[in-house]
C-alpha cells in the first residue's frame, strides 16, 4: 500500500512539474492575451488524460479497498483463536487495572499496568473504563481499542515472539494522559504459568522486623484507603493493587522505573512527578519511609 501510494504521488508530481515547466521558455506575464479558444486537438487529448487518470484512481482505490479488507480479516483471524486467555482491562485516570478472569474466583489475578501473556496463545482483551474514555494501544502487538464507560469493547492480541512491549493510552483522558503507559510482557507458557501462580498467592509475610514495621506504617496510614494488598487488611479499590508491586518493572503507569529511589519520591510527593494524579502526598518520618520501602520492595 505504501509503495503504491508513493508511486502515485511521485507520478502526479512529475506530471505537474512537466505541466508547469513545459512552456517555461519566454516567460509569461499577466498582460498576455488569454487563450480563449484553445487548440481543439490538445483539449481532446487532455480530456482523455483526465478521464484515464480518474479511471486509474478508481481502479487503484478498489484494489486498496480489497487489500485493506483482506488484511483486516487476516489480522483478525490470526489474533483470534481457540482456548484464548481472557484479560479484563479497566481504564482509570491515569492507570490500567488488569484482571485475569476465571470461573473460579480463587484463580482471579488482579494487577496493574503490567500485563503478562503467554507467547503463541490468543488473548482476548475485554475493555471498559471506570471514568472517562481511554484507548488501549500496544503498537507492536496490534491496533487500538477504546475503553468506554458503560460499554465493553474487545481486542484480540497474539504475541509470537517473547519480549517486552510498551503500550500507551491513545485517547486524551485529561491531565496526565501523557503518563498513562503500560507494559506487556510476552513470555513462554511455562514462565507465564510461574508468574501467574506467583500472582495468585497473597502478599508474602514480612521476613525482617524492618519490613514488619513497614507493613504497620502502610496499614496505619491513608494508603489503605485506596490500595489493596491481598493477605492484609488493606482493601482499597481506588488505586492499583499492590499485592505484588515489587514484581512490576515500572510504577505510576510506566512513568518511572521501579527503583527504591523512585518509589520513595513517588510515595512522598507524587504530585511533583505526575501533577494532578489522584495520590495525595505523604508526610512520613524518614525511618518510617525506609521501613515502608523495605516492605513494598518485598512484595514480589
Amino acid at each position, binding site marked *: 500500500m505504501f509503495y503504491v501510494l508513493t508511486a502515485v504521488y511521485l507520478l502526479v508530481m512529475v*506530471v505537474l512539474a512537466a505541466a508547469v515547466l513545459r512552456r517555461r521558455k519566454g516567460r509569461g506575464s499577466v498582460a498576455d492575451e488569454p487563450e480563449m479558444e484553445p487548440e481543439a486537438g490538445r483539449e481532446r487529448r487532455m480530456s482523455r488524460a483526465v478521464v484515464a487518470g480518474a479511471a486509474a484512481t478508481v481502479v487503484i482505490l478498489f484494489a*486498496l479497498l480489497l487489500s*485493506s479488507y483482506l488484511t483486516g480479516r487476516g489480522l483478525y483471524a490470526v489474533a483470534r483463536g481457540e482456548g484464548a486467555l481472557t484479560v479484563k482491562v479497566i481504564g482509570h485516570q491515569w492507570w490500567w487495572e488488569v484482571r485475569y478472569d476465571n470461573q473460579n474466583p480463587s484463580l482471579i489475578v488482579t494487577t496493574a499496568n503490567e500485563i503478562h501473556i503467554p507467547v503463541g496463545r490468543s488473548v482476548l482483551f475485554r475493555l471498559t473504563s471506570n471514568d472517562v474514555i481511554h484507548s488501549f494501544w500496544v503498537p507492536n502487538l496490534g491496533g487500538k481499542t477504546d475503553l468506554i464507560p458503560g*460499554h465493553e469493547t474487545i481486542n484480540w492480541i497474539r504475541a509470537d515472539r517473547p519480549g517486552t512491549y510498551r503500550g500507551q493510552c491513545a485517547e486524551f483522558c485529561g491531565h496526565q494522559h501523557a503518563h498513562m503507559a503500560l507494559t506487556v510482557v510476552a513470555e513462554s507458557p511455562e514462565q507465564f504459568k510461574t508468574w501467574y501462580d506467583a500472582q495468585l498467592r497473597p502478599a508474602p509475610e514480612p521476613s525482617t522486623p524492618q519490613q514488619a514495621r513497614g507493613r504497620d506504617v502502610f496499614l496505619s496510614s491513608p494508603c489503605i484507603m485506596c490500595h489493596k494488598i491481598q493477605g492484609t487488611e488493606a482493601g482499597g479499590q481506588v488505586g492499583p493493587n499492590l499485592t505484588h508491586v515489587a514484581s512490576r518493572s515500572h510504577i505510576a503507569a510506566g*512513568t518511572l522505573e521501579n527503583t527504591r529511589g523512585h518509589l520513595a519520591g513517588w510515595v512522598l510527593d507524587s504530585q511533583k512527578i505526575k501533577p494532578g494524579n489522584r495520590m495525595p502526598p505523604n508526610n512520613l518520618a524518614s525511618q518510617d519511609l525506609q521501613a515502608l520501602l523495605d516492605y513494598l520492595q518485598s512484595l514480589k
Partner: protein
Amino acid sequence: MPRRKKREGKGKEDARAAEAGPRVDAEALREAARRAVAARADRALAEDLVDEHEREALEKTWGDPPGLWGWLTTVNHKRVGKRFIATAFAFFVAGGILAVLMRVQLARPENNFLGPDLYNQIFTMHGTVMMFLFAVPVMEAMAVYLVPLMVGTRSVAFPRLNSFGYWMFLFGGVMIFVAFFLNVGPDVGWFAYPPLAGPEYSPGKRADFWAQLITFTEVSALVVATELITTIFKLRAPGMSLNRIPVYVWSILVMSFMVFFAMPTVALGSACLIMDRLIGTHFFNPAEGGDPILWQHLFWFFGHPEVYIIFIPATGFVSAIIPTFVRRPVFGYAALVLSLVSTGFIGFGLWVHHMFAAGLPRMGASFFTAATMMIVIPSGVQIFCWIATIWGGRPVFKTPFLFVLGFFFTFVLGGMTGVMQASVPLDLQVHDTYFVVAHFHYVLIGGSVFPLFGAFYYWLPKITGRMLSEALGKLNFWLMFVGFNLTFFPMHLLGLVGMPRRVYTYQPGLGWAGMNLAATAGGVLLTLGVVVFIFNFFRSLRRGAEAGDNPWGASTLEWATTSPPPSYNFLHIPTVADRDTLWKQGPDQPVVVGLRLDVRQVLVTKMLDAEPEHKEEFPTPTPWPLFAALATTAMFIASVFTPWAVPVGMIPVAAALVGWFWPRKHQAEERAPDEVKERLGEKTVRQRLEALEEVGA
C-alpha cells in the same frame, strides 16, 4: 468600469456621410468624420457627467455615516467582510502562537516549560481556535467580501444578518480568549469527549465556555451560509446563468449547503453537553442510560464535513487563481463543479472513520472505509483538471501561483496519507498518533492555508487598492513551505514509532527527541513566514504600487470595478455573456440601468438563468444587529452560570429582533408582481396597495 458604446452610433454617422452621394469629395468626407467624432465626444462627455452624478448619488445612498457610528452600524458587505477577514486572521495568529508554545514544550522530553494543566488548555484552544475561529470564518469572510462582487451585485443578501453574524463571531472569540486568560480556558480537547468533558470529570466552567463558543460560531456560520446561498441563487448579474458561475462561487455554494447540514448537529450536541453539565440531564452519562458514543456521532457528523467546509472554498481559490496565471479558461468546468458537489455529498458519509477504535460492527467499518476512499475520486478529478489547465496554458510565476503549487505538493501528500488511514487495520495503528497530526496538517495547511495565502496575494490588491511586494511574497512562500514541511513531515515518523497525540510530554529514551526538535525548528520558520506576510501587508498599504482595476488581467467580475470597489460595488450592474466574462465580452456588452439611485435597490434575478425578476429595497445602516448580538452574547455567557439566563435573556433578544425588523416608511414606488396583477387585475391591485398606504400614514 470601462464605458461601452453602441456600435450603431458610429454606423449611423457613416451612413449619413454616405447619403451625401457619390459626388462627395474627400474634404466633405473628412468633415463628416470630424463631426462624427465630435458628436461621439459630446456623448462621451455627457455620459461622463451623468456617470459622475450617478456616482455621487449612489455614494450618498450606499455610503455609511461617518465616524464610529458608521463603523458600528454598517451593513456594507465589504466593510463587514474586511473586518471579518482581519478578525479571523488575528485568531489565526493567536492560534499560531499557541502552537509555537506547544512546540517549545515538546522540543525535548520531560520538559517543564508548560505544565499539563496549561498544555491541555493550550492544545484545546489551538484546535478550537483554528477550526472554529479561523478556518471556517475566514473562508466565509472571504466569500462575504468576494461573492457579491463576483456575481455582480451591490450587496450580500440580508446585509443586517451578515453584520449580526460578524458580531457573534467576534464576541464568541473574545469570550473564549478572556476565559483562557482568566485560567478557565477549555482543557478537554477540541472534540470535548464526554465523560471527560462531562460534569463529573470536568468540574468548573472550562468546558461550558467551550460549549458556548461552539454555539456562537455555529450561529455565525449558519447565518452567513444563508445569506451566501441566497446571494448566489438570487442576486447574480443578468446573464450569469448557473453554467456561467465562477468555480469559486460554486465552491462557496457547496460549502454553505454543507454548513446547513453539519453545523446544527454539533450545535445541538454542545447544547446537550451543556445541559448535562448545568441542569443534570443524562445524554452522555452511561450510569443513567446515556451514551458517550452518542456525542462522538454528533460531533463527527459535523466534524468531518467541517474539514470539507474548509477545504472546498480553498479549492475554489485554486480554481480562480490557476486560470489567471496560466492565461486560459479552467479546463473541465463541468467536471470541477460536479466534483465539488459530490465531495459535498460524500463528505457526510465519512464521520465514522474517526471512531474506528470505538469498537464498531465490522460491516459498518467496511462501509466507511469505502466511503472514505470514494471521496478521493472527486478530489483526484479536480487535481487532474487543474494540472490539465496548467498543461494547456503558459504559467506566470507570481506569488499566488507559487502558493497554488505549494498546495499541490503538500495536499496530494496529505491525501495519500488519508487514503492509508481509510484502511481500518492501518487506522487502528496510527489513529490518535502524530501520524494523524501530520496528515491533517498536510490537508488543512497544505490544502487550505496555502491556497488562502495565495488568495490573499491575489485579492488583497482588489481590497486595498495596493499591490503586495513580489519579492517579499516569494520569501514568504518559501519560508512557509520549508517551515511547514520541516514541522510536519517528521510527525509522520513520530506517529509510526508510536508517539500518541495530545501528550504534554514524553519520556526520554524512546527515540522521539530528535524529530520533535526538528519539528519545533520548522515551526519557527513557519512563524517567520507569517511575520513576513504581515510585514508585506502593512508595507503595501503605505508603499505598495497602485493596483488599478485588474492588475492580474483576470476574467471574473470583481475585476471590472475599481480597486478598492466603491460602496455600491458597480456603477452599473454588469451583464454576463460567458464564464470568463471579462476575457470574452466585447466593448458593447450591455449594462443594467433603471435601479434607483436614492434608495438601496438591488436587482433580483431568476435562480437558473439569471433573468431580471424584480428589485428589492435593501436596509440602510442600523445598530440593531449589534444590539441583537450583544443581547444574545449576554444570554449565552450568562447561561454558563445559570440556566435561568435562557428564559430571561430571551426577552432582550426578542426586543432587539423586533427593533431590527420594525419597518421604516418605504421610499420607493410600489409595483406588484405580474402574476398578482394577472390574478386580480390591475385595478384591484392598485386599490389594495393604496389601502396599505393608508395604514399608519
